């Protein structure tokens, strides 16, 4: 048997500097607990699908990870949760996005895969579907943790001083872009004259 389980709990600015021994121990313990939950399913002859759902549910219920309880906050101070699952045998898949009252979004994603003919449901429709399929529904406040709420306050504070980007700027008439001239001459860098990088994100401001 080659039963195998691999998990992740998120990536980002996780350095030794911003970690304490207690925190490191707590994360290691939580990851081991999640591994054991899924591996026990596999050892008992359960399916890979059951194993990944069981594992992710443990991490959704842990306030340490950015999923389920302990998820980060939106700009409006809410928790909007997303999840997806895929079955390698049938290529069936299910996902939910923007749900705010489903305790375990991964189970809602699995319900979409197995109990609907869709792949992705979002927002209040996804919540209604979850309710109809008997999933555990909680108050929005269930997902709240002080640490994540403070992270939002920090992001909002850093936003206050930032230069408003395109998304924030109120719409106003701007002079029409100059019509590109027909004859294009290539610069050494291989970019046509007059080419400008599209300003998608303001450098350094990832959140928000």
């Amino acid at each position, binding site marked *: 048997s080659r039963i195998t389980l691999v998990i*992740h709990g998120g990536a980002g600015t996780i350095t030794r500097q911003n970690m304490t021994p207690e925190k490191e121990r707590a994360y290691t313990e939580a990851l081991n607990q999640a591994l054991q939950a899924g591996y026990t399913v596999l050892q008992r002859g359960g399916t890979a699908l059951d194993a990944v759902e069981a594992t992710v549910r443990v991490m959704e219920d842990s306030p340490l990870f950015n999923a389920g309880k302990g998820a980060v906050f939106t700009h409006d101070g809410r928790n909007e949760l997303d999840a*997806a699952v895929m079955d390698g045998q049938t290529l069936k898949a299910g996902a939910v996005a923007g749900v705010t009252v489903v305790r375990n979004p991964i189970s809602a994603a699995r319900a979409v895969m197995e109990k609907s003919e869709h792949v992705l449901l979002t927002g209040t429709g996804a919540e209604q579907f979850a309710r109809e399929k008997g999933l555990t529904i909680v108050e929005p406040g269930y997902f709240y943790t002080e640490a994540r709420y403070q992270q939002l306050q920090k992001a909002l504070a850093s936003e206050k001083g930032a230069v408003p980007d395109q998304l924030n700027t109120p719409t106003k008439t701007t002079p029409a872009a100059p019509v590109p001239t027909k004859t294009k001459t290539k610069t050494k860098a291989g970019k046509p004259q007059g080419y400008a990088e599209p300003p998608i994100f303001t450098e350094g401001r990832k959140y928000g």
Partner: protein
Amino acid sequence: TVGAVALDQYGNLAAATSTGGMTNKRYGRVGDAPIIGAGTYADNQTCAVSCTGWGEYFIRVGVARDVAARMEYGRQPLAAAAQATLDKVAQLGGDGGLIGLDRQGNITMPFNSEGMYRGYIKANGQTEVLIYK
């Protein structure tokens, strides 16, 4: 974001991902986690993948399916396929990581951010939990 990929005794693969998204997000913003083929993908013929990172870049590259496609079309092994796709994300300016598993039980956990909570358990019970690079 959290995720898991598994291989069961019947040879089937599965992948799952769940997230709260990005701090301070607006306008109903959704990242890669719920987008099949971007943050989550599984196919018995190639691999199971779950991603975590800057969603916009993972969606634009189509990371999870890209890794599987490299294995399917390019006959690349899992680890090489995963690293090549993550390098593509980095070239665009994105960061993050993924976990991958193929039907032989090979594991990959690459990331180009400063750390990633990750771990595995193999058939022989060998297990490890890692946080930093």
